[in-house]
């Protein structure tokens, strides 16, 4: 078992002028499950491949445990990777696929067999060991790919969107299985996904990347309750947080026909406007507040989501709110919302950074 450390690790693709991963600083604890998440092109896969040794590191270092592996070839890093398309060898049986790394390493045959059996038992693959990957379902192939990683007993598991080729139902199931398996084996794991739900449900900690730059690393809870900037606030959570550009006024932020009070110190640095974030579940129907015309009502039974438009001067802003599913407002009507006290996030309108408030 080992820790993983990115020390200002940078990857610049040949011919590019902007690094795909820009001075990534990240420390992953021994046995931790860390999820790298972000939109496509944010550098999350590149970061993982740098750790695997499949991409060159153009600046900084990468350490596994205390060992600097920046220039160590992939096979000597003591890692195992699960690929998005599983990358199983099509001409080998499941057992051969799982035992291939050991065979190359010159492990004795009965030892290979024992370890493959062990992994197959954990993953419920015992009946399929003699089959070729073609004869397996998507979910089974995914488990073989996991098995191939487990058999090696590496210091670190690397997983590159391993669930994205599964159907929705299987994905949710496998999500839980992988998370519990990782906890059982206690192997440090770096997991890449573009799906923030996966990130939130699986990770001990989540790292959000954008344009090659690390935005925030935190536990899922903290990430949700305390996003460091506008990007993280909008990216984490589904439906997304409402991010409204509102005018600053004496004593707070002008929230429709009411004022959301904010202490003076917090507003000192901002200009005329401020970005105010409220999650849909923190929007409360009220007499006064933000006037929103209801465009769509999505009834989910217990809850209903309102997709509406906030008309403010020239610009229209989309607003999403969760309301009681038993008595939702009618489509086309105009309702007023107030944010729940203590659940408001303020961001600088220019830099997008979080403004800390005491309230």
């Amino acid at each position: 078992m080992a820790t993983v450390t990115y020390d200002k690790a940078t990857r610049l693709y040949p011919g590019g002028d902007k690094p795909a991963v820009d001075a990534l600083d990240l420390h992953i604890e021994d046995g931790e499950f860390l999820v790298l998440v972000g939109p496509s092109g944010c550098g999350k896969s590149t970061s993982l491949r740098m750790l695997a040794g499949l991409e060159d590191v153009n600046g900084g270092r990468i350490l596994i445990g205390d060992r600097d592996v920046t220039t160590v070839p992939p096979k000597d890093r003591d890692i195992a990777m699960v690929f998005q398309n599983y990358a199983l060898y099509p001409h080998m049986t499941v057992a051969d696929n799982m035992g291939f790394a050991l065979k190359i390493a010159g492990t004795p045959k009965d030892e290979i067999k024992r370890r493959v059996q062990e992994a197959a038992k954990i993953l419920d693959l015992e009946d399929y060991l003699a089959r070729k990957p073609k004869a397996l379902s998507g979910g089974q192939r995914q488990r073989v790919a996991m098995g191939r990683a487990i058999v090696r007993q590496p210091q670190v598991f690397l997983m590159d969107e391993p669930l994205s080729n599964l159907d929705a139902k299987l994905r949710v199931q496998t999500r839980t299985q992988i998370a519990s398996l990782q906890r059982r084996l206690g192997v440090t794991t770096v997991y890449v996904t573009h799906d923030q739900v996966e990130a939130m449900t699986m990770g001990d900690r989540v790292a959000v990347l954008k344009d090659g730059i690390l935005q925030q690393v935190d536990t899922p809870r903290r990430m949700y309750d305390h996003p460091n900037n506008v990007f993280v606030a909008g990216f984490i959570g589904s439906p997304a947080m409402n991010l409204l550009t509102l005018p600053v006024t004496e004593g707070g932020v002008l929230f429709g026909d009411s004022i959301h009070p904010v202490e003076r110190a917090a507003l000192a640095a901002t200009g005329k406007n401020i970005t105010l974030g409220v999650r849909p579940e923190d929007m409360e129907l009220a007499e006064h507040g933000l006037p929103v015309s209801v465009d769509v009502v999505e009834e989910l039974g217990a809850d209903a989501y309102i997709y509406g438009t906030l008309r403010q001067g020239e610009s229209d802003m989309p607003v999403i709110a969760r309301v009681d599913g038993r008595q939702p407002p009618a489509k086309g009507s105009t309702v007023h919302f107030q944010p729940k006290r203590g659940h408001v996030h303020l961001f600088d309108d220019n830099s997008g950074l979080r403004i800390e408030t005491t309230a």
Partner: protein
Amino acid sequence: MTSAEKFLSMLIALVAFAAVIAVILFLARTFGERNGGRGTAWAFMAPVVLLLSVGLVFPALMTVYQSFLDARGDNFVGLANYATIFTSPDQLTVLRNTVLWVVLTPFVSTAIGLIYALLVNGARLEAPAKALIFLPMAISFVGAAIIWKFVYEFRPLQGNVQQIGLVNQIIVWLGGEPVQLLIESPLNTVLLIVILIWIQAGFAMTVLSAAIKAIPDEIIEAARLDGVGVVQMFRFVTLPTIRPAVVVVLTTIGIATLKIFDIVQVMTGGQFNTSVIANEFYSQTFRSDNQGLGAALAVLLFLLVIPIVAYNVRHLRSSEAR
């Protein structure tokens, strides 16, 4: 015929072709819709079936029949022609040569093509390097044979005679005496085989290079993470993955080799014990006026090609099913 007449007859042929197609399409449309399209199928099949039976099936049957007749095609001689093929020393040499051709050409061309494909894959100047080895494919067998005639050309060592053959000039430069390369058997057959290898290696390289490129990057990366070296990568990952392409290349070249005629005809005309089945079939039929033996050789050639074609088709089918 003048040029004008040639163009006219070409035009007439084109118009006739268009007319036939039009008639077929008309028939298919008029009667095709009934019987769930079976009429359409027949309308399109009929010309093919007709032409194939006239041009292929009938001659094939006739050839088989003739192979049981004597030299002039008058008397029935049973299997005597086949007996000749497998007993007469001349014919046994032909068979030996054919075996040499069929064993050496596919395997050596494929090996060279594969090594070349692996070497240039992803290298700088990949495209020109590939074009270089692929170019001979564009040359006809006759053209290639003429080129290589100059390579193997021999001039006796007397007076001021200069060697014009590439190989012999090199031998002379190295201080040796020029040799008559195409006289000595079986060396001469091997030298002829080199020509076909020169042509076919480009084909092998092109197909195998495409197959190698089609291997998903992730599989290569997975193998690298699994710790394979260069040789192991080839043995455990690359070769098994491109196996279907290798089989196709081997069998395609094998079939072409079995039917080889032009190179032998141009280079030696089958003399000096270099004849192969196709060449012998031609010589017996048209030079030695031995129709029966010629037909028997043709049938033998046909019988030899069938298993390779069958294997190829079966392999293709099974790799599709995989």
